[in-house]
């Protein structure tokens, strides 16, 4: 079995993952029972449409439309974001209403709100959330900071596991603070003195932390059961979930929640070699993260939100030196294992198009927001599928006619010959329902390839 796997090409591995997506399983591992043959047919048609748009081999029957909401389903159903995070049933019901009312070609599951109770158990410090520093109606918010200090590069470079377990986790989870005391595991080598290494596990604070961890694990299971059940239920009704997993560009991994924006940008000047080394160290971890999820979930598409490589953030030279090399390695690493990297280029990516063009053909899908789509189509059209660009200002403040007009131009500019998926440019919360409906329905009508 292992040997057979090794012989498969990236192409075959991708086909295998698409095949697994097309043939979903129930929690017991049996073939999923669809509600009826109509739902089964729609499910496969939707995935095939997306697959064709991505692979650039066959013209899809029409432009796929996959809105990518943030907390919109909660607003739309009239539940607070606090409820969405604490009442898993309400969350699932709200997200279900969204999927059934708008009938997108794919949805993103209902994992976005996350489990409030889980975060409470671990005393998560990286975010404020409804009831914990944010009002019940508002979405959770990342609290940017230096969760890795400027002088800690060597810790990360020499032993990433130790860095994350003993330094990072204690900082971002209050309940795991005692993990600072955990032993250095490579010390467990020979009979003599082995027990010394285990002393930390006997200390009361560590034991309390371990109990919190077990409690958090139970809550995570409960939540994941609800979220996973939702995906299954939607699949049975004919609606595929698009996200097979999640990973990041190494520069963002470091720049978002480890060093922070200011930290990483100063490091570019003060310790560029350490930064470059750390980016290399993180690269295989980011590949593993995406590939592992794709294989577990049986879905090829790996979401990668991009932050600090956008237009304006870095110069061309800085982008080519610090951002792109390891980002590209992650893309290629994912593709080699059959995944479809799905980078979401937040902000503008106009100045990056000719650089990111250097990826294998038909194996990626790029979400764009402020990027000129006609230009993106021209530069990337033969290489990659592009997605998105419907402005949030129109979805929020415009009329259905405004939406249709913009969508028409988008399809004219970006969808010729396939390779485009209709979607919003940035993740949306409280847009007007009739505008979203107009985006979906218009695409289904105007986006048919003849």
């Amino acid at each position: 079995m292992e040997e057979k796997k090794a012989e498969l090409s990236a192409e075959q591995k991708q086909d295998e993952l698409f095949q697994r997506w097309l043939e979903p399983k129930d929690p017991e591992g049996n073939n999923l029972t669809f509600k009826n043959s109509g739902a089964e047919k729609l499910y496969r048609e939707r995935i095939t449409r997306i697959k064709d748009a991505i692979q650039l081999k066959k013209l899809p029957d029409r432009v796929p439309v996959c809105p990518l909401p943030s907390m919109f389903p909660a607003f739309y159903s009239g539940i607070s974001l606090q409820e969405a995070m604490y009442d898993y049933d309400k969350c699932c019901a709200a997200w279900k209403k969204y999927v059934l009312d708008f009938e997108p070609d794919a949805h993103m599951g209902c994992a976005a709100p996350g489990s409030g109770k889980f975060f409470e158990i671990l005393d998560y410090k990286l975010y404020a959330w409804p009831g914990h520093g944010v009002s019940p109606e508002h979405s959770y918010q990342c609290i940017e900071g230096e969760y890795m200090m400027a002088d800690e590069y060597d810790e990360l470079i020499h032993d990433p596991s130790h860095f994350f377990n003993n330094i990072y986790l204690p900082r971002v989870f209050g309940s795991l603070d005692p993990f600072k005391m955990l032993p250095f595991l490579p010390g467990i080598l020979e009979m003599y003195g082995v027990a010394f290494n285990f002393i930390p596990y006997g200390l009361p604070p560590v034991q309390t932390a371990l109990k919190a961890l077990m409690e958090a694990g139970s809550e995570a299971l409960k939540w994941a059961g609800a979220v996973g059940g939702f995906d299954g239920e939607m699949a049975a009704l004919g609606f595929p979930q698009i996200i097979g997993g999640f990973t990041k560009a190494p520069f963002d991994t470091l720049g978002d929640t480890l060093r922070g924006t200011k930290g990483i940008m100063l490091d570019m000047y003060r310790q560029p070699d350490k930064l470059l080394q750390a980016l290399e160290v993180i690269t295989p971890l980011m590949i593993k993260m995406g590939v592992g999820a794709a294989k577990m979930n049986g879905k090829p598409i790996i979401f990668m939100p991009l932050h600090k490589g956008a237009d304006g953030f870095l110069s061309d030279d800085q982008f080519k030196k610090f951002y792109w090399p390891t980002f590209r390695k992650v893309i290629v690493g994912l593709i080699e294992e059959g995944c479809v990297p799905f980078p979401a280029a937040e902000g503008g990516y106009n100045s990056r198009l000719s650089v990111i063009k250097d990826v294998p053909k038909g194996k990626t899908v790029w979400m764009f927001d402020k990027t000129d789509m006609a230009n993106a189509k021209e530069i990337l059209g033969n290489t990659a599928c592009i997605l998105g660009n419907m402005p949030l200002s129109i979805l929020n403040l415009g009329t259905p006619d405004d939406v249709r007009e913009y969508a028409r131009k988008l399809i004219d500019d970006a969808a010729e010959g396939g390779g485009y998926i209709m979607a919003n440019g940035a993740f949306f919360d409280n847009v007007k329902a009739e505008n979203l409906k107009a985006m979906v329905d218009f695409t289904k009508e105007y986006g048919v390839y003849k």
Partner: protein
Amino acid sequence: MPRELVNLLSNLKEPESIDYVEKSLGRGVDPLQLLEQAREGMKIVGEKYADEKYFIPDLIFSGEILKGVVDKLKPHLKKKEETSPLGKVVLGTVAGDIHDIGKNLVVFMLDASGFEVLDLGVDVPVEKFVNAIKETGSRVIGLSGFLTLAFQSMKQTVDAIKEAGLHDVKIMIGGGQIDERVRSFSGADAYGKDAMEAVKLVKGWIGG
């Protein structure tokens, strides 16, 4: 005015800038003259940013070098020296929004262009904007926001300023998802797509 520090700073030479300041102070150079050079250096940094030669890392780094320079100069500066700023601008990220990178760049560019800027920070409540205008007598106010949630906050802020009877105040808005449509929704006077445009707008309104 000697230009060594101007050049060092505008070329982002951190240790060299600090070293130069220390040595100059040791030689008895007037700290005010060094401060003036530092300011000139920062102005050039701003120009390079406007010309797209410098980007966010360069701006952030220049700010850090400046901080180091000012820390060295502080003990030698007798009293707060007077500048003649062109006019006051109040700026802040609106309620519910904590994105500040874009706003900080606007502050940086206005500052480098000679305006005095009162930065109210992030997640700024409506009343705080109104009070700041009343207290400073500022005639230009800038609202930054990156979230769609900010559309509403901007409108509320603009409404409150008008309700407070501050009709001669010019309001500009900007930030990630903001565009002309949001401007008309919010009732602000102008939308600026970047920090350079913010400077242009302010110049148009209060000169400089």
